[in-house]
Protein backbone atom coordinates (compact mmCIF):
# COMPACT_ATOMS: atom_id res chain seq x y z
CA UNK A 1 0.00 0.00 0.00
CA UNK A 2 1.20 3.51 -0.82
CA UNK A 3 1.72 6.08 1.87
CA UNK A 4 -1.24 8.27 2.72
CA UNK A 5 -0.84 11.98 3.43
CA UNK A 6 -3.05 13.77 5.92
CA UNK A 7 -2.97 17.52 5.45
CA UNK A 8 -5.28 20.51 5.74
CA UNK A 9 -5.34 19.84 9.47
CA UNK A 10 -6.84 22.88 11.19
CA UNK A 11 -4.51 24.56 13.69
CA UNK A 12 -6.79 26.84 15.62
CA UNK A 13 -5.13 27.04 19.00
CA UNK A 14 -6.22 30.10 20.96
CA UNK A 15 -3.91 32.44 22.85
CA UNK A 16 -5.94 31.87 26.02
CA UNK A 17 -4.83 28.23 25.96
CA UNK A 18 -1.20 29.31 25.84
CA UNK A 19 -1.22 32.01 28.53
CA UNK A 20 -1.26 29.62 31.50
CA UNK A 21 1.23 27.24 29.85
CA UNK A 22 3.66 30.09 29.20
CA UNK A 23 2.98 31.78 32.57
CA UNK A 24 1.89 35.11 31.19
CA UNK A 25 -1.80 35.22 32.04
CA UNK A 26 -1.51 38.23 34.34
CA UNK A 27 0.67 40.40 32.12
CA UNK A 28 -0.87 42.39 29.29
CA UNK A 29 2.46 43.35 27.67
CA UNK A 30 3.55 39.74 27.25
CA UNK A 31 0.03 38.57 26.35
CA UNK A 32 -0.13 41.08 23.49
CA UNK A 33 3.31 40.04 22.28
CA UNK A 34 2.26 36.39 22.28
CA UNK A 35 -1.00 37.21 20.49
CA UNK A 36 0.98 38.71 17.59
CA UNK A 37 3.36 35.75 17.46
CA UNK A 38 0.53 33.22 17.54
CA UNK A 39 -1.39 35.06 14.83
CA UNK A 40 1.64 34.81 12.50
CA UNK A 41 1.99 31.13 13.30
CA UNK A 42 -1.67 30.34 12.69
CA UNK A 43 -1.56 32.10 9.32
CA UNK A 44 1.07 29.75 7.95
CA UNK A 45 0.71 26.54 9.96
CA UNK A 46 0.27 23.35 7.93
CA UNK A 47 0.77 20.35 10.21
CA UNK A 48 0.93 17.12 8.24
CA UNK A 49 1.15 13.35 8.64
CA UNK A 50 2.36 10.62 6.30
CA UNK A 51 1.55 7.04 7.17
CA UNK A 52 1.04 3.62 5.69
CA UNK A 53 -1.02 0.56 6.47
CA UNK A 54 1.71 -2.05 6.79
CA UNK A 55 1.83 -5.79 7.28
CA UNK A 56 3.49 -7.10 10.44
CA UNK A 57 5.49 -10.28 10.00
CA UNK A 58 8.11 -12.10 12.02
CA UNK A 59 11.52 -13.48 11.19
CA UNK A 60 12.53 -16.94 12.43
CA UNK A 61 14.12 -15.45 15.53
CA UNK A 62 11.04 -13.38 16.31
CA UNK A 63 12.37 -10.12 14.87
CA UNK A 64 9.55 -7.87 13.66
CA UNK A 65 9.29 -7.11 9.96
CA UNK A 66 7.20 -4.13 8.90
CA UNK A 67 6.51 -4.24 5.18
CA UNK A 68 9.55 -6.52 4.97
CA UNK A 69 11.86 -4.16 6.86
CA UNK A 70 13.50 -5.70 9.90
CA UNK A 71 13.19 -3.62 13.08
CA UNK A 72 15.51 -4.39 15.98
CA UNK A 73 13.55 -4.04 19.20
CA UNK A 74 12.80 -6.64 21.83
CA UNK A 75 10.01 -4.46 23.25
CA UNK A 76 8.44 -4.32 19.80
CA UNK A 77 8.61 -8.10 19.44
CA UNK A 78 6.50 -8.48 22.57
CA UNK A 79 4.18 -5.51 21.96
CA UNK A 80 3.41 -6.59 18.39
CA UNK A 81 2.83 -10.27 19.29
CA UNK A 82 -0.82 -10.27 18.26
CA UNK A 83 -0.59 -7.59 15.58
CA UNK A 84 -0.97 -8.37 11.90
CA UNK A 85 -1.08 -4.75 10.81
CA UNK A 86 0.55 -1.55 12.00
CA UNK A 87 0.79 2.07 10.92
CA UNK A 88 4.31 3.48 10.49
CA UNK A 89 4.10 7.27 10.37
CA UNK A 90 5.86 10.60 10.29
CA UNK A 91 4.05 13.61 11.77
CA UNK A 92 5.26 17.19 11.63
CA UNK A 93 4.36 20.73 12.60
CA UNK A 94 5.27 21.54 8.97
CA UNK A 95 8.20 23.29 7.32
CA UNK A 96 6.25 26.57 7.22
CA UNK A 97 6.39 26.89 11.02
CA UNK A 98 9.98 25.63 11.12
CA UNK A 99 11.12 28.32 8.67
CA UNK A 100 9.12 30.98 10.52
CA UNK A 101 10.60 30.07 13.89
CA UNK A 102 14.12 30.22 12.43
CA UNK A 103 13.56 33.89 11.61
CA UNK A 104 13.07 34.75 15.29
CA UNK A 105 16.03 36.05 17.25
CA UNK A 106 14.76 36.90 20.73
CA UNK A 107 15.17 34.09 23.28
CA UNK A 108 11.63 34.49 24.56
CA UNK A 109 10.08 34.49 21.08
CA UNK A 110 12.12 31.40 20.17
CA UNK A 111 10.89 29.63 23.32
CA UNK A 112 7.28 30.57 22.63
CA UNK A 113 7.55 29.53 18.98
CA UNK A 114 8.94 26.19 20.11
CA UNK A 115 5.84 25.68 22.25
CA UNK A 116 3.53 26.74 19.40
CA UNK A 117 5.27 24.36 16.98
CA UNK A 118 5.02 21.57 19.54
CA UNK A 119 1.27 22.18 19.78
CA UNK A 120 1.01 22.08 15.98
CA UNK A 121 2.73 18.69 16.05
CA UNK A 122 0.28 17.59 18.76
CA UNK A 123 -2.58 18.67 16.49
CA UNK A 124 -1.13 16.53 13.68
CA UNK A 125 -0.87 13.50 15.95
CA UNK A 126 -4.45 13.93 17.18
CA UNK A 127 -5.68 14.16 13.58
CA UNK A 128 -3.73 11.00 12.73
CA UNK A 129 -5.29 9.00 15.56
CA UNK A 130 -8.79 10.23 14.66
CA UNK A 131 -8.12 9.29 11.04
CA UNK A 132 -7.07 5.74 12.01
CA UNK A 133 -10.20 5.27 14.12
CA UNK A 134 -12.44 6.58 11.33
CA UNK A 135 -10.73 4.72 8.50
CA UNK A 136 -9.64 1.42 10.04
CA UNK A 137 -11.94 1.23 13.07
CA UNK A 138 -8.94 0.84 15.33
CA UNK A 139 -9.81 0.60 19.00
CA UNK A 140 -7.01 1.15 21.48
CA UNK A 141 -3.72 2.00 19.83
CA UNK A 142 -0.28 2.66 21.27
CA UNK A 143 2.83 4.21 19.80
CA UNK A 144 6.47 3.21 19.59
CA UNK A 145 9.03 5.82 18.53
CA UNK A 146 12.66 5.08 17.59
CA UNK A 147 14.98 6.68 20.11
CA UNK A 148 12.46 6.74 22.94
CA UNK A 149 14.12 3.72 24.54
CA UNK A 150 17.59 2.22 24.31
CA UNK A 151 15.84 -0.94 23.14
CA UNK A 152 14.89 0.76 19.85
CA UNK A 153 17.64 3.22 19.00
CA UNK A 154 17.27 6.47 17.11
CA UNK A 155 19.30 5.10 14.19
CA UNK A 156 16.29 2.90 13.35
CA UNK A 157 14.46 6.07 12.35
CA UNK A 158 16.02 5.67 8.90
CA UNK A 159 14.02 2.45 8.54
CA UNK A 160 10.71 4.22 9.21
CA UNK A 161 11.57 6.67 6.44
CA UNK A 162 12.50 3.76 4.20
CA UNK A 163 9.19 1.97 4.86
CA UNK A 164 7.33 5.16 3.95
CA UNK A 165 9.41 5.59 0.78
CA UNK A 166 9.49 9.28 -0.17
CA UNK A 167 6.46 10.26 1.92
CA UNK A 168 8.70 12.03 4.45
CA UNK A 169 9.91 14.37 1.73
CA UNK A 170 6.34 14.84 0.47
CA UNK A 171 5.35 16.33 3.83
CA UNK A 172 8.60 18.32 4.01
CA UNK A 173 10.45 16.29 6.62
CA UNK A 174 14.14 15.68 6.10
CA UNK A 175 16.18 13.13 8.01
CA UNK A 176 19.82 13.99 8.56
CA UNK A 177 22.60 11.41 8.67
CA UNK A 178 22.56 11.66 12.45
CA UNK A 179 18.83 10.79 12.45
CA UNK A 180 17.66 14.28 13.32
CA UNK A 181 14.40 15.32 11.71
CA UNK A 182 13.88 18.80 10.28
CA UNK A 183 11.40 20.39 11.07
CA UNK A 184 12.52 19.75 14.63
CA UNK A 185 8.94 19.35 15.81
CA UNK A 186 8.45 16.14 13.89
CA UNK A 187 8.08 12.63 15.17
CA UNK A 188 8.26 9.23 13.55
CA UNK A 189 7.04 5.94 14.88
CA UNK A 190 4.64 3.06 14.55
CA UNK A 191 1.07 3.13 15.77
CA UNK A 192 -0.22 -0.34 16.63
CA UNK A 193 -3.34 -1.87 18.10
CA UNK A 194 -2.78 -2.98 21.65
CA UNK A 195 -4.90 -4.75 24.25
CA UNK A 196 -3.53 -2.45 26.89
CA UNK A 197 -2.03 1.00 26.53
CA UNK A 198 1.75 1.07 26.13
CA UNK A 199 3.86 4.16 26.79
CA UNK A 200 7.66 4.13 26.36
CA UNK A 201 7.71 6.17 29.59
CA UNK A 202 6.81 2.98 31.50
CA UNK A 203 10.28 1.67 30.64
CA UNK A 204 12.19 4.96 30.94
CA UNK A 205 13.73 5.85 34.31
CA UNK A 206 14.54 9.47 33.39
CA UNK A 207 12.98 11.58 36.10
CA UNK A 208 11.89 15.23 35.84
CA UNK A 209 10.92 14.67 32.21
CA UNK A 210 8.32 17.26 31.18
CA UNK A 211 6.97 14.90 28.52
CA UNK A 212 6.31 11.96 30.85
CA UNK A 213 2.93 10.36 30.11
CA UNK A 214 3.08 7.31 32.39
CA UNK A 215 5.00 6.43 35.55
CA UNK A 216 8.21 4.39 35.29
CA UNK A 217 7.63 0.73 36.15
CA UNK A 218 10.94 -0.64 37.40
CA UNK A 219 9.85 -4.27 37.10
CA UNK A 220 8.10 -4.11 33.74
CA UNK A 221 11.03 -4.90 31.46
CA UNK A 222 12.12 -7.91 33.50
CA UNK A 223 8.58 -9.25 33.84
CA UNK A 224 7.27 -8.65 30.34
CA UNK A 225 10.12 -8.10 27.91
CA UNK A 226 13.16 -10.00 29.11
CA UNK A 227 13.58 -12.93 26.71
Amino acid at each position, binding site marked *: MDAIIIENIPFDIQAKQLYP*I*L*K*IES*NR*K*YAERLDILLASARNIACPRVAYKLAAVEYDNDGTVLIDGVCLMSRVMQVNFEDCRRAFPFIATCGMELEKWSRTLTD*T*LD*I*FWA*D*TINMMALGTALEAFKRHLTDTFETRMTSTMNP*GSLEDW*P*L*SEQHKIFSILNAAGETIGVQL*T*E*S*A*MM*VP*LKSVSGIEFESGEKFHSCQLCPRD*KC*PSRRAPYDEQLYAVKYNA
Partner: protein
Amino acid sequence: MKESLISVQKAVNELMFDEIKGLVFACLDEGIPPLEIIEAGISKGLELVGEQFETGTYFLADLVMAGEVVKEAMPILEEKMDPGAAGQKGKIVLATVEGDIHEIGKNIVGMLLNVNGYEVIDLGVDVSAGKILAAVKETGARLIGLSALLSTMIGGIKEVVDSVVEAGLKDHVKVVIGGACTSEQLKEEMGADGYGETAVQAVKIFDKLSAT
Protein backbone atom coordinates in the same frame (compact mmCIF):
# COMPACT_ATOMS: atom_id res chain seq x y z
CA MET B 1 18.56 41.36 55.25
CA LYS B 2 16.90 44.61 54.19
CA GLU B 3 13.20 44.42 53.44
CA SER B 4 13.71 46.03 50.00
CA LEU B 5 16.14 43.28 48.93
CA ILE B 6 13.70 40.62 50.08
CA SER B 7 11.06 42.33 47.91
CA VAL B 8 13.37 42.06 44.88
CA GLN B 9 13.93 38.36 45.64
CA LYS B 10 10.18 37.87 45.86
CA ALA B 11 9.53 39.75 42.61
CA VAL B 12 11.94 37.47 40.73
CA ASN B 13 10.66 34.34 42.43
CA GLU B 14 7.00 35.19 41.84
CA LEU B 15 7.49 36.48 38.28
CA MET B 16 6.34 40.03 39.10
CA PHE B 17 7.22 41.70 35.77
CA ASP B 18 5.37 44.93 36.52
CA GLU B 19 6.82 45.48 39.97
CA ILE B 20 10.50 44.61 39.54
CA LYS B 21 11.71 47.95 38.15
CA GLY B 22 10.10 49.96 40.95
CA LEU B 23 11.55 47.63 43.58
CA VAL B 24 15.06 47.92 42.13
CA PHE B 25 14.79 51.73 42.07
CA ALA B 26 13.65 51.63 45.70
CA CYS B 27 16.79 49.64 46.62
CA LEU B 28 18.99 52.16 44.79
CA ASP B 29 17.21 55.04 46.52
CA GLU B 30 18.07 53.41 49.84
CA GLY B 31 21.72 53.52 48.80
CA ILE B 32 22.15 49.78 48.33
CA PRO B 33 25.02 49.17 45.86
CA PRO B 34 23.94 47.65 42.50
CA LEU B 35 26.14 44.57 42.97
CA GLU B 36 24.49 43.84 46.31
CA ILE B 37 21.04 44.18 44.69
CA ILE B 38 22.12 41.65 42.06
CA GLU B 39 23.66 39.20 44.49
CA ALA B 40 21.28 39.42 47.46
CA GLY B 41 18.12 40.28 45.52
CA ILE B 42 18.12 39.06 41.96
CA SER B 43 20.47 36.06 42.14
CA LYS B 44 18.86 34.90 45.37
CA GLY B 45 15.42 35.22 43.74
CA LEU B 46 16.64 33.15 40.80
CA GLU B 47 18.03 30.60 43.24
CA LEU B 48 14.56 30.26 44.72
CA VAL B 49 13.11 29.83 41.22
CA GLY B 50 15.74 27.16 40.60
CA GLU B 51 14.81 25.32 43.78
CA GLN B 52 11.16 25.30 42.75
CA PHE B 53 12.14 24.06 39.31
CA GLU B 54 14.16 21.23 40.87
CA THR B 55 11.24 20.16 43.05
CA GLY B 56 8.83 20.27 40.13
CA THR B 57 6.77 23.22 41.43
CA TYR B 58 8.03 25.40 38.58
CA PHE B 59 8.40 24.39 34.93
CA LEU B 60 10.55 25.55 32.04
CA ALA B 61 8.18 28.40 31.23
CA ASP B 62 8.57 29.75 34.79
CA LEU B 63 12.33 29.61 34.41
CA VAL B 64 12.19 31.52 31.13
CA MET B 65 9.83 34.13 32.52
CA ALA B 66 11.99 34.59 35.63
CA GLY B 67 14.78 35.42 33.18
CA GLU B 68 12.50 38.03 31.62
CA VAL B 69 11.85 39.59 35.03
CA VAL B 70 15.61 39.79 35.56
CA LYS B 71 16.05 41.32 32.09
CA GLU B 72 13.68 44.12 33.14
CA ALA B 73 15.90 44.89 36.13
CA MET B 74 19.42 44.43 34.81
CA PRO B 75 19.73 47.48 32.52
CA ILE B 76 18.89 49.75 35.48
CA LEU B 77 21.61 48.14 37.59
CA GLU B 78 24.23 47.84 34.84
CA GLU B 79 23.92 51.53 34.15
CA LYS B 80 24.95 52.25 37.75
CA MET B 81 27.74 49.69 37.87
CA ASP B 82 31.42 49.78 37.11
CA PRO B 83 31.62 48.47 33.50
CA GLY B 84 34.14 45.81 34.56
CA ALA B 85 31.73 44.31 37.09
CA ALA B 86 29.41 42.72 34.50
CA GLY B 87 30.37 39.16 33.66
CA GLN B 88 32.68 39.12 36.65
CA LYS B 89 32.48 35.35 37.08
CA GLY B 90 34.21 34.74 33.75
CA LYS B 91 33.57 33.89 30.12
CA ILE B 92 31.75 30.81 28.86
CA VAL B 93 31.67 29.63 25.26
CA LEU B 94 28.28 28.02 24.70
CA ALA B 95 27.17 25.97 21.69
CA THR B 96 24.99 23.18 20.41
CA VAL B 97 27.29 20.56 18.90
CA GLU B 98 27.84 20.00 15.19
CA GLY B 99 24.96 18.23 13.47
CA ASP B 100 22.38 19.37 16.03
CA ILE B 101 20.19 22.46 15.60
CA HIS B 102 18.21 22.34 18.86
CA GLU B 103 18.64 25.57 20.77
CA ILE B 104 15.98 26.00 23.45
CA GLY B 105 17.94 24.24 26.21
CA LYS B 106 21.15 26.04 25.31
CA ASN B 107 19.37 29.41 25.25
CA ILE B 108 17.89 28.86 28.71
CA VAL B 109 21.27 27.84 30.15
CA GLY B 110 22.81 30.90 28.49
CA MET B 111 20.18 33.20 29.94
CA LEU B 112 20.67 31.78 33.46
CA LEU B 113 24.46 32.00 33.20
CA ASN B 114 24.21 35.57 32.02
CA VAL B 115 22.03 36.73 34.89
CA ASN B 116 24.29 34.83 37.26
CA GLY B 117 27.28 36.95 36.34
CA TYR B 118 28.95 35.16 33.43
CA GLU B 119 29.79 36.62 30.07
CA VAL B 120 28.27 34.16 27.63
CA ILE B 121 29.68 33.81 24.14
CA ASP B 122 26.86 31.97 22.40
CA LEU B 123 28.08 30.44 19.14
CA GLY B 124 24.62 29.13 18.23
CA VAL B 125 23.72 25.70 16.90
CA ASP B 126 25.48 23.13 14.69
CA VAL B 127 28.90 24.40 15.74
CA SER B 128 32.07 22.51 14.84
CA ALA B 129 34.79 21.67 17.37
CA GLY B 130 37.16 23.89 15.37
CA LYS B 131 34.92 26.95 15.77
CA ILE B 132 34.47 26.30 19.48
CA LEU B 133 38.22 25.99 20.04
CA ALA B 134 38.86 29.14 18.01
CA ALA B 135 36.35 31.06 20.16
CA VAL B 136 38.01 29.78 23.34
CA LYS B 137 41.42 30.95 22.12
CA GLU B 138 40.10 34.28 20.91
CA THR B 139 38.13 35.18 24.05
CA GLY B 140 40.28 33.49 26.66
CA ALA B 141 37.22 31.67 28.00
CA ARG B 142 38.06 28.92 30.47
CA LEU B 143 34.67 27.25 30.33
CA ILE B 144 32.77 25.57 27.49
CA GLY B 145 29.12 24.55 27.63
CA LEU B 146 27.96 21.98 25.09
CA SER B 147 24.38 21.03 24.36
CA ALA B 148 23.35 17.85 22.52
CA LEU B 149 19.84 16.50 22.32
CA LEU B 150 20.10 13.28 20.36
CA SER B 151 22.22 10.24 21.14
CA THR B 152 23.53 10.32 17.58
CA MET B 153 25.18 13.68 18.30
CA ILE B 154 27.53 12.58 21.08
CA GLY B 155 30.42 12.34 18.63
CA GLY B 156 30.31 16.13 18.50
CA ILE B 157 30.99 16.29 22.25
CA LYS B 158 33.97 13.97 21.94
CA GLU B 159 35.42 16.07 19.13
CA VAL B 160 35.34 19.19 21.27
CA VAL B 161 36.90 17.46 24.28
CA ASP B 162 39.61 15.95 22.06
CA SER B 163 40.35 19.28 20.40
CA VAL B 164 40.80 20.91 23.82
CA VAL B 165 43.22 18.14 24.80
CA GLU B 166 45.11 18.34 21.49
CA ALA B 167 45.46 22.10 21.89
CA GLY B 168 47.12 21.51 25.26
CA LEU B 169 44.32 23.35 27.08
CA LYS B 170 42.88 20.49 29.14
CA ASP B 171 44.23 21.86 32.44
CA HIS B 172 42.89 25.34 31.80
CA VAL B 173 39.59 24.87 29.97
CA LYS B 174 36.70 22.87 31.42
CA VAL B 175 33.91 21.34 29.34
CA VAL B 176 30.37 20.95 30.70
CA ILE B 177 27.75 18.94 28.83
CA GLY B 178 23.97 18.95 28.96
CA GLY B 179 20.92 17.94 26.92
CA ALA B 180 18.56 15.01 26.70
CA CYS B 181 21.11 12.42 25.54
CA THR B 182 23.76 13.35 28.12
CA SER B 183 24.37 11.87 31.55
CA GLU B 184 26.97 11.62 34.29
CA GLN B 185 28.11 8.37 32.67
CA LEU B 186 28.48 10.03 29.27
CA LYS B 187 30.47 12.83 30.88
CA GLU B 188 32.97 10.21 32.12
CA GLU B 189 33.06 8.42 28.76
CA MET B 190 33.65 11.63 26.83
CA GLY B 191 36.26 12.96 29.24
CA ALA B 192 34.20 16.09 29.97
CA ASP B 193 34.50 17.92 33.29
CA GLY B 194 30.88 18.48 34.23
CA TYR B 195 27.31 17.43 33.48
CA GLY B 196 24.23 19.53 34.15
CA GLU B 197 21.01 17.55 34.16
CA THR B 198 18.98 20.75 34.19
CA ALA B 199 19.72 24.39 33.35
CA VAL B 200 19.73 25.20 37.05
CA GLN B 201 22.24 22.44 37.79
CA ALA B 202 24.39 23.57 34.88
CA VAL B 203 24.85 26.97 36.55
CA LYS B 204 25.90 25.25 39.79
CA ILE B 205 28.41 23.09 37.90
CA PHE B 206 29.89 26.13 36.14
CA ASP B 207 30.11 27.93 39.50
CA LYS B 208 31.98 24.97 40.95
CA LEU B 209 34.37 24.67 38.01
CA SER B 210 35.04 28.39 37.75
CA ALA B 211 36.05 28.41 41.40
CA THR B 212 38.78 25.78 40.87
